[in-house]
């Protein structure tokens, strides 16, 4: 029999219920504006970039770290790739993704060196590299916004690579192909976390570093993988961001780091490491996106967005904290001692 109690104890399930309930409420109050395909496409489109970043943030959180440098990596990847494409004249979308991924990987490995080899605290290191990367980009590479359509044709054209297009009230609404990138990467991360030794190592390091080391996991190598891969994800996310926004704006993205982490945490990942799932993360991203784009359909003014998100985060992290507290109390009562 399905264990209902265990199901309800999972934050992924709770957030799923919240998501469904919120959708139901919006659908009842404002069915015409909410229940239509263009609106669904809009919500999904808004999920893509934050979703890709969130997958990276999830891996780092599971391993017990925290990374705030990914927006800087993403914008470096996008801007430098665009510059390279413009300079070389090789105007190709696959090249853009390859360059973005490589630049992201390289910058992610810089984090890995500090974190893996020098064993420095992750938040502080990535805080340093966030400033270093973004400052270097703006100072050395440039601070001028590049409109893709003015300098490229193929790369700029990727904005219109849609899978499905439906007629909407004004013009038409489309689902962009990059949703497939998000889904593909989500599958990849899910597979790594769930079915590979590497995934086990990531959970193990986050759960108990000492124990993981004794169990024979190579911590430095695992951390190199994590931060390199997260850099790669950030790079891909940066390119997607550029395609969707039709421009390479060196001032974009940075500043969203804590929002992304909030979405992942809302999805049930523990900031102390060792816990978190891809499904939960995607649900967290969907919930945050839904709140920021569709709360207004409930007649709630947009000014309330941040308030609602903040309250949700506190409730979302408060419930498991209180649950574990209660468990601990029960545990000590049972064991009788102390």
């Amino acid at each position, binding site marked *: 029999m399905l264990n209902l109690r265990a199901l309800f104890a999972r934050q992924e399930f709770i957030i799923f219920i919240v998501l469904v309930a919120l959708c139901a409420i919006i659908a009842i109050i404002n069915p015409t504006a909410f229940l239509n395909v263009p609106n669904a496409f809009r919500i999904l489109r808004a999920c893509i970039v934050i979703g890709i970043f969130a997958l990276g943030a999830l891996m780092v959180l599971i391993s017990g770290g925290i990374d705030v440098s990914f927006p800087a990596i993403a914008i470096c990847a996008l801007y430098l790739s665009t510059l390279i494409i413009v300079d070389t004249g090789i105007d190709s979308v696959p090249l853009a993704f390859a360059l973005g991924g490589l630049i992201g990987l390289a910058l992610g490995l810089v984090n890995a060196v500090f974190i893996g080899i020098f064993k420095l605290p992750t938040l502080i290191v990535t*805080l340093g590299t966030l400033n270093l990367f973004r400052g270097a980009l703006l100072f050395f590479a440039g601070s001028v916004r590049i409109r893709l359509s003015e300098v490229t044709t193929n790369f700029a054209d990727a904005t219109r690579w849609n899978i499905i297009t439906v007629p909407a009230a004004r013009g038409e609404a489309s689902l962009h192909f990059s949703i497939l990138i998000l889904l593909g990467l989500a599958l990849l991360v899910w597979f790594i976390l769930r079915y590979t030794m590497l995934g086990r190592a990531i959970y193990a390091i986050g759960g108990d570093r000492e124990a993981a080391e004794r169990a024979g996991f190579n911590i430095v190598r695992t951390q190199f993988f994590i931060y390199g891969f997260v850099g790669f994800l950030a790079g891909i996310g940066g390119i997607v961001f550029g395609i969707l926004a039709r421009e390479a704006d060196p001032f974009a993205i940075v500043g969203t780091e804590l929002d992304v982490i909030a979405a992942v945490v809302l999805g049930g990942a523990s900031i102390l490491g060792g816990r978190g799932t891809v499904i939960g993360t995607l649900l967290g991203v969907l919930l945050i996106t839904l709140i920021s784009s569709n709360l207004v359909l409930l007649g709630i003014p947009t000014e309330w967005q941040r308030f609602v998100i903040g309250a949700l985060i506190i409730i979302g992290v408060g419930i498991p904290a209180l649950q574990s507290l209660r468990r601990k109390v029960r545990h000590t009562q049972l064991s009788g001692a102390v």
Partner: protein
Amino acid sequence: MANVQASPGKFKTSDAPRLSLDSLIPRDTSIIRLLVITIVLFAVFSLLKPATFPTPINLQSMAFQMSEIGILAIAVALTMISGGIDLSINATANLTAVAVASVITALAPATTTDAGTAATAVTLAIVIGLGVGFVCGLVNGLLVAYANIPPILATLGTMTLFTGIGTVITEGAAIFAQDRLAEVGNGKIFEIPVPLIIFLLIAVGVHFLLSKSRFGFELYMVGTNPQASRFSGINNRNVLLRTYILSGLLSALAGIVILGRTNAARVDFGESYVLLAIMICVLGGIDPAGGFGRIIGVVLAVVALQLLSTGLNQVFFDNPGANFFRQFAWGATLLLVLLLNYFSARARQRRITS
């Protein structure tokens, strides 16, 4: 409960808050290093830009700029020493500024010319502002100490929540303080900027609070080893609660200073301040893992970063990218100091073992 009167030297030697004057003389290496860096920065920029850098006017403008972030950094430092962190400092500061500006605008609008009314309004506004900071800190403290939520998460949530409340109140617009707080943000006493005086008073106050009071001793104990401190009779929860309240109050003061300088309260002001304040703390030798660090280090780090920022601005005077180079230099400095600390710690270890 046993009388845990402070004799911290028994517990920690390197950063022991002593009860004597020589606690002001930096003994641990990271603070000496920071002092050297600060002096070198000042010397280098003075040599590069002798006409504009070491001038009273420039020193004054640097003092204005560094005070707000300095106060916020001290707020973060307290929570870091306790083993936590406070990401909501800037949100608290902005919410305070919104509250203060709203009260001033309501009680003494621009049309009010009566000095007495204005003074009452400002006083009341500041009291309410500090109350806002107190409540914000209290919420953080309750979440961290009593709901057992990891500080980084609790304050990430309240950061969003406080900003959210501010956005609801202001509807995203700026609220003006009718220039009634200008003395706090832009004033000078004997040519010394008022924000600097506030910052230094806070720094000295918190320094003595940490080194002389029982609270300070307990704070270091909780940050070093919460288990041990609980077993030695310290009420960890109470210490944490007070720490976050103090952080909230200091953030509120920073908010009032910012409002005084800018005359406008905005909920989205200075979003980069949070990460910058954390960076300053780490540069200043506060251990993010808790239990270690001194306020004098934070003050030195604030000064060093300000020298670096202003100096680079002057060196790159004609270059519009000066701001960006500054960000680059901040990041590089932070990573460099981390590496220096790492290698000096390793060298020390090797000396001890050999």
